[in-house]
């Protein structure tokens, strides 16, 4: 069982489904963009 209902934040504020999906999309897109950049950064750090 969940500790709180779906979309309810720790401050008690509820996030609607569209807002949650929008946040999830931003997170997903950011990670997709960040991973290749971080892989390059990791390679550069290993070379130095």
């Amino acid at each position, binding site marked *: 069982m969940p500790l709180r209902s779906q979309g309810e*934040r720790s401050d008690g504020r509820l996030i609607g489904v569209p807002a949650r999906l929008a946040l999830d999309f931003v997170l997903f*897109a950011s990670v997709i963009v960040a*991973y290749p950049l*971080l892989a390059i950064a*990791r390679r550069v750090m290993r070379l130095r």
Partner: protein
Amino acid sequence: MMVSAMVVALALFAAFAWWRFHFFHRQPARAIPPGDELLAAADGRILYVEDVSLEGAPANAYHERVRSTFGVSGDWTVVATYLSIFDAHFVRAPVGGTVKFHHMLPVGKNASMGQSFLFAALRRPLPVGRRGYLEKNEFLGVSFEDGPPVLLVLMADWWIDQIVTIVSAGERVARGEVIGKIQMGSQVDLWVPAGSLGTPLKVGDVTRAGETTLS
């Protein structure tokens, strides 16, 4: 140009929908190694491993939260695992025992764990100064009453706050059994008595819940 931009946008939305509604919620089967070795509780990458003393004045507010939540003292080793959005988020029991839950409310509002993502992706230990969320965020503590002294801290990121327990408090679980799930970017800390880790663990190592042995 316009057509290719639309194709890229559609592909991105399709990949997002697949991840959000299918891939993220997967529960991969695990071959639990026989024996009584300590198991990893979460899938992810090790963010840091450190020795912590809960005797006397704790070094920081997180250690004090753990000490007061679980009512423990003594010397411990903490293995912090960061779960990226592509890791399976089902948490498994590192040992067998009767589950006891300890719910710790946030101090103010939950803080972001974005820096954990960055350092985990770079395979670098998360510096102590960047672990402020440990002192603020809501977490679910799990202990195993009639099992070995092992503590779990399940911490979710600021904007999801959902920690789902799959088993009930007081229920007996087997070693490697699924006990809960945390949503999206998250961290699982495994606290074990100092000196009980047999496997040398390095920052950036990959762990698999219920399969990777730690002792």
